[in-house]
């Protein structure tokens, strides 16, 4: 109870005006030597929970002082004061005239806070009543993201549903993807020519899904390589990728029944530096002249240097990346290119495992959903704006709010 009384006192003292404000009043009067400018304080100051955060903020809103006018207004600023656990008021923010809300951050859910908003004139401050003490709360769920969650769940559910369907033995149709047909031929070609295969899993580390996708494809083709007994070499630019790539190849060789053919020397670390790595790989390419080059993973500017050098030595090149910026170069310089999504589909496709193929079906559900929403949304928006149809506009607004990520 004493807590509240303390606040009452504090706010009263602020209204007529606060000690700190009083000093300023005295100062400004002394300096400007003008008449005292009195303004009404802001009213209805309300502190409320800042929604869906981790308990670090409170929202503050108020009705601006009636003397805060656009023309001839007396208020030159608003000051927000905060008291922590009933302690002293401290100014935390100064806002421009016309302001009516503020989010107070850097709070802790262990403390309670009370606020006072003061209208500032040339003569001093005129403070509102203090708000009731409030502690920010940590939420367990961010409801603003509920649509994201639901749609994500829908698509993830679809993927899992099809995986399960496929596992039960139902045959699912997946169309052919051009570049993938060529992979086995490319491995075979290297064998026939008695030359080697070069595999580049991009230049990113294991914390990029594209590297993972590249390695899973490596896992599939390493089996074929083991059977054909072709020479594989794989310089990499990340130590973790080196480790993972060795595990991948080893596992594939084991599955193919050729563990004896595996050697750690197939994978070697060069350097983390993008262009140092490229300089080395370029050199290896022209010296070793591999018959087949795989470029599957996350690529950056080096994509074209590698692909052009590979082209100049006459290698068959199969590339794939999800970096849109690099796709044009692969298209221009490689024999086959897996465009974006196809890179991720490739390992599922190559595995011929029903479950993996099922996941591609699930992906299509996502695409179908996107297409349907685009068609409905565009039609509704067009009708709404062309013929001013309210109901159509509300469809558009709903779709926008559902798909909005903010």
């Amino acid at each position, binding site marked *: 109870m004493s807590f509240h009384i303390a606040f009452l006192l504090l706010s009263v003292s602020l209204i007529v005006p606060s000690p700190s404000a009083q000093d300023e009043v005295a100062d400004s009067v002394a300096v400007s030597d003008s008449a005292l400018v009195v303004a009404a304080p802001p009213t209805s100051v309300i502190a409320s929970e800042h929604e869906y955060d981790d308990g670090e903020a409170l929202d503050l809103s108020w009705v601006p002082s009636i003397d805060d006018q656009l023309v001839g207004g007396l208020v030159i600023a608003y000051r927000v004061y905060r008291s922590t656990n009933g302690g002293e008021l401290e100014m935390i923010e100064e806002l421009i005239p016309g302001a009516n809300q503020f989010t107070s951050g850097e709070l802790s859910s262990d403390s309670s806070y009370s606020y006072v908003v003061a209208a500032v004139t040339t003569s001093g401050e005129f403070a509102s009543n203090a708000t009731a003490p409030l502690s920010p709360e940590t939420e367990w769920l961010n409801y603003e993201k509920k649509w994201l969650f639901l749609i994500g769940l829908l698509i993830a559910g679809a993927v899992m549903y099809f995986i399960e369907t496929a596992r039960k033995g139902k045959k699912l149709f997946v169309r052919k993807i051009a570049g993938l047909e060529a992979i086995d031929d490319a491995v075979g070609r290297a064998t026939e020519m008695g030359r080697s295969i070069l595999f580049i899993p991009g230049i990113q580390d294991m914390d990029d899904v594209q590297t993972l996708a590249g390695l899973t494809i490596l896992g599939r083709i390493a089996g074929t390589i083991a059977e054909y007994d072709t020479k594989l070499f794989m310089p990499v630019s990340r130590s973790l990728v080196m480790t993972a790539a060795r595990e991948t190849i080893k596992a594939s060789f084991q599955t193919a029944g050729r563990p004896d053919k595996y050697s750690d020397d197939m994978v070697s670390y060069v350097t983390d530096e993008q262009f140092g790595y490229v300089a080395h790989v370029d050199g290896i390419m022209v010296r070793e002249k591999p018959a087949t080059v795989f470029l599957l993973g996350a690529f*950056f500017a080096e994509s074209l240097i590698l692909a052009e050098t590979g082209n100049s030595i006459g290698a068959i090149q199969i590339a794939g990346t999800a970096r849109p*910026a690099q796709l044009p170069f692969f298209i221009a310089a490689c024999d086959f290119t897996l465009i974006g999504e196809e890179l991720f589909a490739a390992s599922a496709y190559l595995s011929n495992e029903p479950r993996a193929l099922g996941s591609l079906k699930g992906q299509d559900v996502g695409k179908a959903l996107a297409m349907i929403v685009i068609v409905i949304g565009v039609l509704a928006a067009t009708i709404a704006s062309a013929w001013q149809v309210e109901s159509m506009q509300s469809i558009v607004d709903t779709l926008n709010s559902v798909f909005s990520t903010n």
Partner: protein
Amino acid sequence: MNARMKEILVVAVLTVFCAIMYWGKVDGWMTGFQFSFGLSMTVVILIAVSLLVILYLTLRGKLIGRRVVFLYVGISVTLPFFMSLSQEIKISPEVQTLYEGIAELPPGSVVLTAFDYDPPSAPELQPMAESFFRYCFNNDLKVVVIGLWPQGPQQANIAIEKILLDEAIAAKNLQYGIDYVNLGFQTGNEFVIQRMGSDFKSMFPTDYTGTPYNDLPLVRNIKNFSNIDYGFNLSAGYPGTVEWVQVAVDRYGLKMGAGNTAVQAPQCYPYIRSGQLVGILGGMNGAAEFELMTGTVGKGTKFMLSQSFAHMIVIAFIIIGNVAYFRGGRKQKL
């Protein structure tokens, strides 16, 4: 003459060339070397004629190799350095909107600039950094620099040092810590941005010199993105503009513009359409346009001539390639 002899000859010629040039540098007669207008035109015409000869050869069925293409690219980039020709520059809408976004900031606004590139991308991005800083300092905007690439903050320092030598800006007597701060580099890619969303200080406990965050008046009161009026990202890849948009713009609502290498820019165009980015400076052309908008002449403008020439050469070879294709050289592989 066998191949080995040829190589030795090339090296010898190159050595002599370098020696003469270096003597020219030491002696001074080489500095600021320029072709006259007439000579420049002659050189242009000579290049054009030689391309026509190649076209003729192609029509006769003699295809040129990739080394000839390489040679032409080298020539077309080098010679314009010394030519006295000028060209007109036009402002594109994405540069216009970016400029307007900065121009509406009142003096004293805090601008966060993220330097996500390294020296190899400097030819494109450094001119942008320089003209951006020049604009900010001239208009009393406060600048906070960070980098998600290790060499980024160094690039920022190079640009700032250069800009501070400008007379108008030197006269302002800008103070480190008050008018601009370089918080340095932090590892963690998009996670850094994510954490900056709640607390800058936790990611940058000190600036690049080791001064504690709280001892820097400019940033002392900056908690997170809500205290930043404008974000500007100079990016050459990952992590870069895409990550800034995904995290800082989408999650924390930062208003943001970007300067990208020309290769990075197309990927960010969807973000302009959707309003996630205010505008983009794309490549050297973007840099030159921004220089024009802010009324300065920097390297971006200067190198545009080489740029134009190089483009013309590439286009000429595309035409020659197609001529070769339609003439029947379809089976030919370069």
